[in-house]
């Protein structure tokens, strides 16, 4: 399954969100889009998922323009998990995960043996088998996100696109979700592309990082190759140290910021402003 953007421009007029952007999603790998708020990384993911139609250029899936392919057919090759999805009130996990089979079903064929097997598998890998009859809105944040991932898995696609799958989760659950996605990539060979905010987690889990900035791709490549202090300065407009992650050896970003230096700075400022007074 090949997915690529061919010189896409998203948005109109003099100030588009993305401009003449080319990007190929590496097959069978984990790709993470990073960039500061409003840089267009979510827009890029949404365009790949056909939620947004580019004003110029096209998204090509297996050599075919995605805009000209039946949406149900696309949904068998490419699944999307948007940011913060909300299930209808009272819907159970099983009912949610069943929706993932939508592109394979019709009104006469709503529960084939294949549907059942794939849903069972999706519930198993997300560790939700025992909770399948629980309403989605009664779950904890981490469980709920796993339920949504199970729905996307039930689509049985080669490509998974996820928009900030770890938002609203505490660190332990963020790790849990990313470990799950990484395992799906390594054991089931699914291509994963997602937007993440946390640079350190992005570096740990990504094979390929795409840094989006200024309407185009600022840099892309393995985290070790591209995540540098210069990149942090250019893409996030922030000074940072890049050190080596003590556990995995991947790049780790320590932002400078001001933090506890606040008081020191104040003292310095005070002595600077007081000095002329003391002279008097």
């Amino acid at each position: 399954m090949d997915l690529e953007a061919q010189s896409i421009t998203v948005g109109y007029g003099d100030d588009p969100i993305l401009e003449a952007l080319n990007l190929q999603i590496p097959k069978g790998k984990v790709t993470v889009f990073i960039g500061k708020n409003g840089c267009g990384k979510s827009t890029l993911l949404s365009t790949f998922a056909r939620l947004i139609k580019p004003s110029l250029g096209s998204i090509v899936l297996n050599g075919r323009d995605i805009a000209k392919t039946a949406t149900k057919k696309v949904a068998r090759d490419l699944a999307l998990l948007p940011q913060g999805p909300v299930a209808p009130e009272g819907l159970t996990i099983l009912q949610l995960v069943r929706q993932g089979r939508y592109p394979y079903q019709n009104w006469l064929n709503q529960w084939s043996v294949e549907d059942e097997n794939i849903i069972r598998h999706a519930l198993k890998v997300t560790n939700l088998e025992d909770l399948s009859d629980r309403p989605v809105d009664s779950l904890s944040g981490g469980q709920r996100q796993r339920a949504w991932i199970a729905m996307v898995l039930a689509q049985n696609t080669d490509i998974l696109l996820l928009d900030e799958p770890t938002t609203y989760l505490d660190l332990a659950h963020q790790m849990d979700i990313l470990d799950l996605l990484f395992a799906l990539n390594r054991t089931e060979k699914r291509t994963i592309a997602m937007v993440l905010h946390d640079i350190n987690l992005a570096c740990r889990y990504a094979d390929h990082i795409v840094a989006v900035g200024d309407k185009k791709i600022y840099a892309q490549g393995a985290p070790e190759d591209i995540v540098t202090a210069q990149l942090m300065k250019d893409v996030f407009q922030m000074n940072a140290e890049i050190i080596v992650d003590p556990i995995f050896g991947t790049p780790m970003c320590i932002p400078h910021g001001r933090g506890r230096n606040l008081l020191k700075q104040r003292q310095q400022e005070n002595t600077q402003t007081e000095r002329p007074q003391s002279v008097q």
Partner: protein
Amino acid sequence: MENRKYHALRWNKASFLVDRKALLAGIILAILFIIVIILSLGLGDVFISPVEVVKAIFKQSTSLNNLVVHSFRFPRILLSALAGMGLAVAGAILQGLVRNPLASPDIIGVTSGASLTTVMFLTFSSSHEASSMNVSIQWLPVASFIGALFMGGLVFLLSRHGFSAIKLVLMGIGLSAGAKALTDLMLIIGPIYLASQSSIWITGSVNGASWSSVVFLFIWSVVFIGLAQILTRRLNAQAFGEKVAVGIGNNLKRDRILLIILSTALAGGAVAYAGAIGFVGLMAPHMARRLVGSSFGSVIPVSALIGGLIVMISDLIGRTVFTPLEIPAGVFTAAIGAPYFIYLLYKTGKWR
């Protein structure tokens, strides 16, 4: 997945997953439905026992009973049931589409459009002196129907560009308000008796039902409720919101159009024959969801049964409890419905 809650049905390429709880609820409601029909047929100025009612249905009772059951009560009861079913399913579809449990057929302008054309019709038919009234009253449903579909269509067309659920709702509210203003204007400038006649229609009444209207509404409801049942998977998909719906391969725009047409047609048909009966389209889907959860495969049929029951019971109370006065069914759907609805919202803590 073969467990207590579900049962898989498969033949060749066809396969379904049956929710046991929903099936049970459906069967119980269907039995209740039949019981209420039989009770309603027996109650009224002339009391007929249930056994005689069943006989009379097959024209095996006394000639008086046969007459009362067949000519007076049966068409009216069936019409109220069909109207309730149509409104309930229309409401269920809209609530899924707009992703808001407070949506009802009123918001897409169907009711107010029908009210407007009905009052227009009554105004113009009565202005040609007394003789024309009795000729034209049978065309009243046609007038209401045209108004309902026209208004539903207008709301839909105007919100078509960059179509979103919220746009549909706002457009519906706006146009409804306009139509209501016109209706009020006509009532005020028209003759006095027009106002009382119209107000009965606007509240919703199945008085004066005929077999021909029953047959028409029956065919209409079977077709559109049937279509709604076939499209429940798409409605389920839409209820997840645009992004998820597109992600799983739902043809968002096309299915929205289809579902709105269905909802307008069902509400329009119901309103045309039974008047603007309020609250059923809001209440029935709610009760259905509380009974069987939020999967539309179960919600649609269960809503239909509940909606039919509500209007049948309301009409039964309206024509029996306050004899010789006859109260329109719509008074009771609102009088019982509104407090129940507030209780529901309060109990489920949805008003935070």
